[in-house]
């Protein structure tokens, strides 16, 4: 017996710590070492002369082999570090790294294939993929958070601006009646005739009423905006025709020189807070007087039926521009016409808050031909 200090090439090939396979140019297996057979749990004679290399691949791998690797082999004579999955029969799927070289041998092309098990690498890659997905999710979440933050910031800025404006307008609107009161008081102090005294007291009373009205609006506004909606006290069977008729009569006194009409149709009975409805009508009429053509009548129409009560306030005059119409019911929107700035700009906002507190809505339309019409609709169950 000859004692060779090293194993022969045959043994080296067969027991190499990687899978080795030799195939023809068509992929037919010509030889395979024991290592690969062991991994695939098959016998050498099942593969040699019986199978093609692509038969060892999963369906996805086969298509990849035909569409990518075979053409590459023809073009560049080798592919290396290709990740594939091997499977023989019903055995387990084995993730592997594969190098393939196309070599000429005695006038024919042979494929030399070396296979390395890549379970660990496979797990590592899956982990990488998973982490990448997680990172992408986090990045998306971050972008969403960032956007929400920017929105919140913009809202906070809006609120701060709004509060500043409100303080400005309110200060201005309270200063006017206060100066009326101050001047009238000074007049009374000087001691004037009975007629003048009476007129001064009337001015003071009106100024106080205006201020109270303003403060009332502010409280309503705060309640509607911050307090989760305007509070209303519904009466089961309020007669809204009657309530509005009385309000229109009172308003007519308050706006001498304007013609106010009231039309009614259908039933006036509705479950509603009549005082709030009267307040809304007052705001709508004041708005019509301030912004409409005073030479022409203002019509308040109330109409009940089919579970809905409608209040329309119509005035003639220059139409409201569309861009103003869009934001009419937002707080502190004032008409742009000269001298139009009366009140704090909360009137229409409060009208809407009253309508919504009743489960209704308010809308406005305006054109040169038809004038301006506000429509309030309340459900009357």
């Amino acid at each position, binding site marked *: 017996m000859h004692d060779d200090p090293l194993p022969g090439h045959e043994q080296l090939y067969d027991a190499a710590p990687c899978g080795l396979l030799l195939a023809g140019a068509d992929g037919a297996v010509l030889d395979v070492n024991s290592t690969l057979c062991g991994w695939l749990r098959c016998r050498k004679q099942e593969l040699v002369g019986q199978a093609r290399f692509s038969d060892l691949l999963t369906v996805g791998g086969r298509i*990849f082999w035909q*569409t990518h690797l075979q053409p590459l082999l023809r073009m560049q004579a080798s592919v290396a570090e290709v990740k594939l999955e091997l499977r023989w029969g019903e055995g387990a799927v084995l993730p592997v790294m594969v190098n393939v070289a196309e070599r000429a041998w005695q006038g024919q092309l042979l494929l030399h294939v070396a296979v390395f098990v890549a379970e660990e690498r496979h797990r590592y890659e899956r982990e990488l993929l998973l982490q990448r997905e997680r990172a992408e999710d986090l990045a998306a979440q971050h972008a969403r958070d960032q956007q929400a933050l920017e929105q919140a910031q913009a809202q906070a800025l809006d609120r701060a601006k709004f509060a500043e404006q409100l303080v400005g307008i309110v200060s201005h609107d309270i200063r006017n009646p206060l100066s009326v009161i101050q001047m009238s008081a000074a007049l009374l102090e000087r001691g004037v005739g009975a007629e003048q005294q009476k007129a001064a007291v009337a001015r003071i009373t009106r100024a106080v009423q205006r201020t109270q009205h303003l403060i009332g609006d502010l409280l309503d506004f705060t309640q509607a905006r911050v307090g989760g909606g305007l509070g209303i006290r519904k009466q089961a069977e309020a007669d809204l025709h009657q309530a509005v008729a009385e309000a229109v009569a009172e308003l007519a006194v308050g706006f001498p020189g304007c013609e106010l009409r009231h039309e009614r149709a259908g039933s006036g009975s509705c479950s509603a807070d009549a005082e709030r409805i009267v307040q809304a009508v007052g705001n709508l009429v004041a708005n019509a007087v301030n912004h409409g053509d005073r030479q022409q009548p203002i019509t308040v129409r109330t109409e009940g039926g089919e579970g809905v009560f409608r209040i329309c306030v119509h005035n003639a005059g220059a139409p409201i521009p569309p861009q103003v119409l869009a934001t009419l019911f937002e707080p502190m929107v004032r008409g742009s016409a000269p001298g139009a700035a009366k009140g704090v700009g909360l009137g229409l906002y409060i009208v809407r808050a009253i309508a919504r507190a009743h489960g209704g809505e308010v809308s406005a339309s305006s054109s040169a031909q038809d004038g301006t019409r506000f429509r309030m609709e309340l459900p009357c169950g």
Partner: protein
Amino acid sequence: MSVLQRNNVHVHGKGPPMVFVHGFGCDQNMWRLLAPHFAETHSCILLDLVGSGRSDLAAYDRARYASLQGYADDLCEVLAAVTSAPAICVGHSVSAMIGMLANLQCPDQFAAQVMVGPSPCYINDGDYVGGFTRTDIEALLQTMEANYLGWSSNMAPAIMGAPERPELAAELTNSFCRTDPEIARHFARVTFLSDHRAELPGLRAPTLVLQCSDDLIAPRAVGEYLRQHIPNCTLRGIENVGHCPHLSAPSASAAAMEQFIAGL
């Protein structure tokens, strides 16, 4: 960017035009063993489909390329830009169908169709044998997504030395068939879920189908189906294992094509 840059168009040779359109998984390098056969008699137009090879990846619009029609539109645009004469279109695999759709779209720009390993539908459907079940294709797409394309940003299998083929050393090694994984994934989906059987009878141009003897992607039954459904169709078998006879059996492929072209 012009359509010529967008599709990385190269023209070689002189004569009536012949356009070569590569299939899924590679680029115009696929034609390196076949196109030179024809460059003496034809002007050979080579292109990369948008999203493949050295095409303009920025032009890859998932909506435009959500069906093969987007590629067919590109092919009409390229031909209009390069030649006024009708071209012989040589399309491999999925591009055989792209060529057919382009032919239906702009028939004046085509003289004939050569389909290399074509399949109008990869999925079995009733009596139709496409070679794959829907489950197979879903598994393929999953395998591609999970294994080959998901984690490397620019996938192209590495190259080893090839002592017997020194000419390769001069090539830009490892530059063939580079693929953006996202695009390849989408293209795979569009390709393997496509079904253009309904359009086959409308193809009027003379058509040659090169059918490999052993092709997993386009089995023989598919070639037979095409012969039966394309009105003016010649079916030629090529002794070849695999899906790329233009690379592994270029001489036989060229001979069959030359015979077909001579008969036009």
